[in-house]
């Protein structure tokens, strides 16, 4: 019998909604999500209307919402507050 332990490796990314978008995650600073899905899919899952997210910044670079999250990514979400 093989008694060696089995490990499940979970790839995660960190989502940090900024400003008013924090209200969608209970005013927490950040939340952890599984990697491998797009930013759009992810933010819909955590209850944020993607239309209200003006900027997606992955590791400080702006990306489209179709960007697929990689392990260890830190994602900041920026709302449009007042416009131009």
């Amino acid at each position, binding site marked *: 019998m093989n008694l060696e332990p089995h490990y499940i490796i979970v790839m995660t990314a960190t989502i940090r909604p900024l400003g008013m978008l924090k209200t969608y995650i209970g005013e927490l600073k950040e939340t952890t999500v599984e990697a491998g899905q797009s930013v759009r899919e992810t933010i819909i899952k955590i209850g944020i209307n993607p239309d209200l997210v003006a*900027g997606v910044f992955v590791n400080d670079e702006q990306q489209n919402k179709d960007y697929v999250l990689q392990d260890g990514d830190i994602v900041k979400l920026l709302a449009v507050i007042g416009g131009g």
Partner: protein
Amino acid sequence: MNGYGGKILRVNLTEGKITQEPIPAQLARDFIGGRGFGIYFLFKEVPKHADPLGPENKLIISTGPLSGMLAPGGGKCDWTTKSPLTGGYADASLGGHFTAEMKYAGLDTIILEGASPNPVYLFIDNDKIQLLDASSLWGKGAIDVEVELKNKYGEEFQIAAIGPGGENQVLYACINHDFGRQAGRGGVGAVMGSKKVKAIVLHGTKTVPVADMDGYRKAGMALYKACKDAEGLAEWSRYGTTVVTSWCDEVGALPTRNFSAGSFEQGSNIYGQTMRKEIVVTDKGCFGCPSPCGKYSNMKRYNTQVEGPEYETIGMMGSNLGVGDIQAVAEANRLADDLGIDSISAGGCIGWAMECYEKGIFTKADTDGLELKFGNLDAVFALIKKIAYREGKMGNLLALGTKRAAQQVGQGSEKFAIQVKGMEQSAYATHNATAMLLAYMTCDVGAHHNRSWAITYDLQVGRDKVVPEKVARIIWLQNFRPMFDVMGSCRLQWVELGIDRDLYCPLLESITGIKRTWEDLEAVGNRIWNLTRMYWARENEGFGREWDLPAPRFYTEPPKTGVTAGQITKFEDVQKLLDMYYQQRGWNSDGIPTQGTLEILNLSAMVA
């Protein structure tokens, strides 16, 4: 007077006479500064029905009590005039470093009146104020002139100049400063050109008295700390207003091919992230700015540089012209800046002309041989030059703006002239965003976004909803947001960083010694809004409801592509929006403030 330079500088260009007068305390109390001073002098001093490009019109440049002070983005002044583009009220806000130097020269307002027989520039070095010969500068680009005058007088002198567009009185000519900042809209540069003033050069070293120095330091530092601590500061600073390009494309607000759609299939080529990677060299801020939105860009293909492009130019000279190439957009931006024409209106005019060409209304015989198809870069560059120099049939036509051009051309082209009151709509497509549509319809300079911006609100409330709450939101924004242009500071720290606006009140009080809440400030904003409305009514016979209608495209032609495909605002909803707006404003059914409203606002005597 605390918070003010203390003087109005009056330059009579016809007589070459320069005089100064003190700022009346009552004026400072009632209208505070900036565009408040602008409409006061415009209404009071410019005769009824003055020709906007004649000597009777005036160009009024005003700082505010926060200008040049310890206030984030406190480098704003306002250029007010009777617009040659619209025939109504116009003001254009200028950033950079001009405003602070103007205040330090002891000047709250500069009034240019009359018209010089020969090209001149106004030179101000504290109390040394002269009109100097500008014949060697006339004909040169605005940026070239700035370089020349900086070399002559030194880096500490700040320069605002017109390009050939202003000299040739293109009706939407702008004024350039700081190698890429503009007083952009409404044709303020054409008015300066009509007065034969090529540039203003100024420098000041005086101090500005404040009422409470300790309070001033504390309140100023509290505002800067709020900016520094704001979430999103790094991101907004890195990308500036281009943050929103991709978002506008996603939500169907990115003007595409003369606003025939709100999403652009080549959009990712002009997004902020593409621009940052491909052309941005470094960031640039205005006076006292903690969140520099300006970007210096290098266009390798053209071997040129520009400050920009920012979102509005990307929308109007990129997607709106079918141009999916950020280097080309930046080059078009550079040309427009140096030649001195507003990139928003120019983009609107070229987009309209391209649609005319594609619909067969124009042929090559009309376009001086240009193939005016959407996406044709060479045609875009050529037209910017033709407009600035009023060259050929097309250059002369488009120099008039889309409203007049469409009136001349006819053949249904009025329906896709994307303008309100004669001003080309800035870069937010409003096929299905009723609050933003109303914002454009009722803006007091024409179809401009900066008085009230409400697309996010549309998305939150429901984009096609026509409800009193949306109207109330627009009115609140119209009363509130332009107060930054009155106080003399940038609104982007509130708009983008979301800092608490209440932090401005103690700062304003410590500087001026007058306690004001935001309720007080919004009351001033409301008063100014009604006065600008009365100015439109005074200057334009038959002014009323018809003037507030949007471009017919937004209620007759749903986009065929993009996320707003098939969506439109019904004309009955357009009318309903106006009904609610007039009622909430206290205006009659034709959009004119009632006597009762004017009395409440203490404006009856002034407008009588």
